[in-house]
């Protein structure tokens, strides 16, 4: 029974990868364009025109931030929008619901796929941010903590994909644009992507306020991995939050998913 559930789940992942491979160029452009522009503007244009003089090290700050925000936002967007589409258009979700898998298994499959997709997106962004720079200005990043990196690679995408599933089961397609403007964009801008969380000391209310934003923990965790010399949240704190949020939101999302699907 358990084996057959795993086999069905694996076949569904194979289907997702098959579609992704077919749309590979589109995936790379969609994923890579925004970070490419961010790197270009922040590490080349702004210093060149004198707006951010002395910010040559900014690339180093951007590596963990952009990888984290892309990973989190991709997972949320991929899982929630595909679910909303499947729930509305001729209820395409029924095709998957008829596969020999319990409904919770289908929810887990969606989270796992969203996480895998987001991991790949994070990888694309890492390559862009790491390799695209002015001559001699390569960001100074190295993996300082391998176990933490592996934990990040597992829990950041899973946590974000769980949020995506929860959002996808709660929102109607007509509310997506509101969600993007009200949640996704603030989550990026205030996700400690462009600055370490510690730097917000100067604005205490904001420093506390951003703590509800999952992107913050993702950025700070990756900061501890890649740029340990820059200020970052304590490893124990970010890890605990990531693990607890993955478990908590994942559980809520699966319950909400079951309720939504089985009328």
């Amino acid at each position, binding site marked *: 029974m358990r084996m057959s559930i795993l086999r*069905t789940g694996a*076949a569904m992942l194979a*289907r997702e990868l098959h*579609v992704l491979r077919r749309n590979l160029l589109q995936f790379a452009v969609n994923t890579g364009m925004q970070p490419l522009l961010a790197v270009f503007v922040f590490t080349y244009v702004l210093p060149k025109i004198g707006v951010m003089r002395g910010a040559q090290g900014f690339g180093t700050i951007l590596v963990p931030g952009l990888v984290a925000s892309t990973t989190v936002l991709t997972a949320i967007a991929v899982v929630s929008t595909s679910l909303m589409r499947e729930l509305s258009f*001729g209820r395409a979700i*029924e095709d998957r619901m008829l*596969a*020999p898998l*319990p409904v919770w298994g289908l929810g887990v499959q969606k989270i796992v796929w969203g996480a895998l997709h987001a991991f790949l997106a994070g990888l694309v962004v890492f390559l862009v941010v790491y390799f695209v720079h002015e001559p001699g200005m390569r960001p100074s990043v190295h993996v300082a903590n391998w176990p933490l990196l592996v934990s990040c690679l597992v829990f950041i995408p899973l946590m974000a994909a769980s949020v995506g599933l929860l959002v996808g089961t709660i929102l109607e397609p007509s509310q997506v644009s509101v969600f993007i403007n009200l949640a996704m964009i603030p989550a990026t801008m205030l996700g400690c992507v462009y600055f370490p969380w510690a730097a917000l000391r100067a604005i205490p209310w904001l420093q506390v306020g951003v703590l509800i934003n999952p992107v913050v923990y993702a950025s700070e965790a990756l900061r501890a991995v890649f740029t340990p010399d820059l200020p970052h949240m304590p490893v124990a704190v970010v890890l605990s939050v990531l693990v607890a949020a993955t478990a908590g939101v994942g559980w809520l999302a699966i319950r909400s998913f079951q309720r939504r*699907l089985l009328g």
Partner: protein
Amino acid sequence: MTTVATNQSAHRHSEPPPVPSRGAGAAITTVELGKTYRSRGGPVVALRGLSMEVQRGELFGLLGPNGAGKSTTIGILTTLIRPSSGSAIVAGADVLREPVAVKRRIGVVSQANNLDRELTVAENLEFRGRYFGLRTSAARRRARELLEWDGLAARAEAMVTQLSGGQAKRVAIARALMHTPEVLVLDEPTAGVDPQTRIRLWKTIRELRDTGLTVVVATHLLAEAEDLCDRVAILDHGRLVVCDSVAGLTGRAGGDRVLTVLFDGPVDQIAIPHWVRRAEVDGAQVRASAANTDGLLSELIAAGAALGRGVRDVTTLLPSLESAFLALTDKEYRE
């Protein structure tokens, strides 16, 4: 175009794909099945205590006007909707306690086109097979067999978004057969297709029944149920009106013809001939059923004339599911 047609007719002669052998007995049993939806306007009762049995190997119709509870019944039998009360056993498994076992044993063709729009026709079938545990090579082989049988081999590499409505329905049927189910469930299989395609789909469905597959068709079309099915359950307002063979049902209405006469004014006092089996007067309309309606029309015209009413319209219904529905519910069947 000609080539495709030739290919298709050649393939149509190939045998339907083999299905597992089955013994006698019930393929589907429901006991007091009920469903109440919660909505903002208060609870909506969609199904009230449905008990019925579908025998193995039969082509069974679930018939009823829109809103009768057919889709809810299909949803429960296919594990997509949880019943509020009662139980249902499909192909030997309980829909509530063993939904995964049910899913392994049924093939489902939904009313809406829910083919995977990001895949080609062949991939739709292959991945469905893989979801059910077929190896890639076996899934590919079976997909090819089914597409040839269904006359769609020439469209195998097309994206499903390029298919016509009828073709999409045939692909959906082929996809539902990928894992050789014991029971095939089709929800309004001919909704929105042209008459030619409808006849072709009926032929396909009959072929599948002839292989021994149990087939359940939900339809709101009387003609579809009458021409296609061995037995039908008629639902109305979430209740089972009757469940019988098509021949039994048309006989149950006494094999009566139903004559409906519309006068140009109220005829509440009209004299109905005593030999009429049932009659009902509603304002300007008289509906009377009898084994033989010869002479009835002239008597009704005369009776109307005695009240000073002329005749506006006359319809006669031969013994059919429609006359049976009318006899059993005292209501006209509105598709």
